[in-house]
């Protein structure tokens, strides 16, 4: 079997195809307002478009899409906004983009986009990168360069798209929300796509699981630097974080000192003689930071330390430290979280 043309196909770059231009964003209005994640994508698209010399067009769909929301999108940075109230069928979306030929097509990595993007990409057999944490343009090739975290963030895969359209879904909160500029103008057009009945999404209570300390995402830990009454603050901080991030597993723990003082049970002790933890974020409040404590927390991906003693050894092992009274810093943190 002659495979030379197969090798050519696998090894070649694809030339820029005729007619693919402009950056498109697909936004979804599940509720009668625009989602922050969609606006962040529009803002970044604006950025990318300026460096490419292209326009930013937005397609707004969803049951609550409206002309008003479309106009808002113009103010947030779009040059043109197309809208239609409803959830488009795969085929009509395919036809729409075959007609408009976007060079780059962006979705927010959120409800709707997560499913829509891969399905569209499969129909188009084009480039798709998901969960992006960074977007940039390779000016020579006019291609989108996307960074995606792999292996729990230990490294990033940097992907350069080779076919048009180049589709990417962007993680929430990566890019800043753009400014609302009421002076911006642009075209707003209603479109008629084929709509399909999508059952309304009603959120339910997240299932309750017992999260062992070793599997928590975020741990708030307290040490002897608190006083007995001060232990309350640890619980309050954990509650505030849990409210802010309801889908993450938050747990409370204590250093050996806190357990010896009786403020928390020994099953919550983080120490070489207790439990070893590896959360995404470990907040050590009023903990001095002996090597036994460090040995149990060194696998945490990010450590924050709060202690009134600037010479406390814990600051050497923490990514971020705040020197101050725990009784003042924790309430300040809670205030920022709630705002």
């Amino acid at each position, binding site marked *: 079997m002659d495979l030379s043309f197969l090798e050519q196909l696998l090894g070649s770059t694809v030339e820029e195809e005729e007619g693919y231009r402009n950056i498109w964003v697909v936004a979804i209005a599940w509720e009668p307002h625009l989602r922050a994640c969609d606006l962040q994508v529009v803002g970044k698209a604006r950025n990318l478009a300026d460096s490419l010399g292209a326009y930013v067009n937005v397609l707004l769909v969803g049951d609550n899409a409206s002309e008003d929301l479309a106009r808002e999108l113009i103010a947030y940075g779009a040059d043109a906004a197309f809208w239609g109230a409803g959830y488009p069928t795969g085929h009509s979306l395919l036809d729409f983009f075959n007609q408009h030929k976007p060079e780059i097509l962006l979705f927010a990595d959120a409800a709707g986009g997560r499913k829509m993007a891969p399905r569209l990409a499969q129909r188009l057999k084009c480039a*798709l990168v998901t969960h992006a944490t960074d977007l940039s343009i390779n000016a020579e090739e006019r291609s989108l360069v996307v960074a*995606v975290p792999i292996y729990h963030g230990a490294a990033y895969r940097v992907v350069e798209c080779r076919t048009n359209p180049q589709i990417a879904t962007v993680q929430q909160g990566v890019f800043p929300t753009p400014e609302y500029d009421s002076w911006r103008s642009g075209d707003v057009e209603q479109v008629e796509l084929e709509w399909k009945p999508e059952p309304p999404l009603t959120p339910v209570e997240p299932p309750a699981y017992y999260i062992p300390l070793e599997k928590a995402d975020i741990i708030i830990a307290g040490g002897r630097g608190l006083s007995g009454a001060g232990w309350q603050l640890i619980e309050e901080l954990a509650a505030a974080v849990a409210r802010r991030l309801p889908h993450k597993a938050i747990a409370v723990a204590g250093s050996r000192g806190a357990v010896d003082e009786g403020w928390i049970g020994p099953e919550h002790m983080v120490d070489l003689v207790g439990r070893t933890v590896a959360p995404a974020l470990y907040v050590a409040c009023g903990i001095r930071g002996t090597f036994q404590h460090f040995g149990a927390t060194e696998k945490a991906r990010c450590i924050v330390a709060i202690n009134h003693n600037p010479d406390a050894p814990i*600051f050497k092992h923490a990514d971020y430290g705040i020197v101050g009274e725990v009784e003042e810093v924790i309430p300040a943190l809670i205030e920022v979280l709630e705002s």
Partner: protein
Amino acid sequence: MRIVVCIKQILDPETIKVSRSQQTIDDRGARKIMNPPDRWALDAALRFKEADPSIEVIALSLGEPDVEDILREALALGCDRAILLSDAYVVKARTAGLAQIIATAIKRLRNVQLVMTGHMALDTGSGTLGPRLAIELGDWPVLMDVDQLRLEGNYATGLQHADEKYYHSSYPLPAVATVLQTPAHPRYAHGADIINAYRVRNVEVWSSLALGIDPTALPAPTTGRQLRIPPARQMGFIVEGTPQEAAQTLIAMLRARRVI
């Protein structure tokens, strides 16, 4: 009823090292394992089988011959069949082509009502195989990032996780489900099943010829890839200012770093 679970072999994240000088991942001494989210999907499928023994669970994977190990593990856990798609051409397939090949294999199996996979592959950070398969199989519905997947008559129901919330969804079979990890630990394979998985059971190996695929007609890979290693963690940074200022700055930095 037939359930197909698509599993992937990846390098164990605990055994790889990151080389800052060479901006690459050092995989010498790295162990190959089944992608943990796919292990959860397998577990969920086997639980359906436990509840209804007439359900047939088939594990499917694609890659080099040593991917056979994860399929043997799937057999040890209780799958009825294990199929490896492997030859010189299919192992080079990526994304769209990959979905096409796997879908062809699933269609060949006939009467498959549910296709399950983990919500993400840890080594690529992407979770698009489920929706892509759904298109190739004939525009099937997808339960994405689903928790508590259940089979109720001719429907697949579950809690889809999106935007930090859970939504109850129900789609008619046949459907695709990408399964979310849950904190409890999965089942253990029985010692006898482990021994038998290697000494008695078979892993079927299908090539592109057997699938009737023309490898030249597969879509070409659409992206080029490189690795970027983030800089080493800097410890000992002190956030200055009054408690209020420090708190603001700290939260902003944590947000920028995508920790919260």
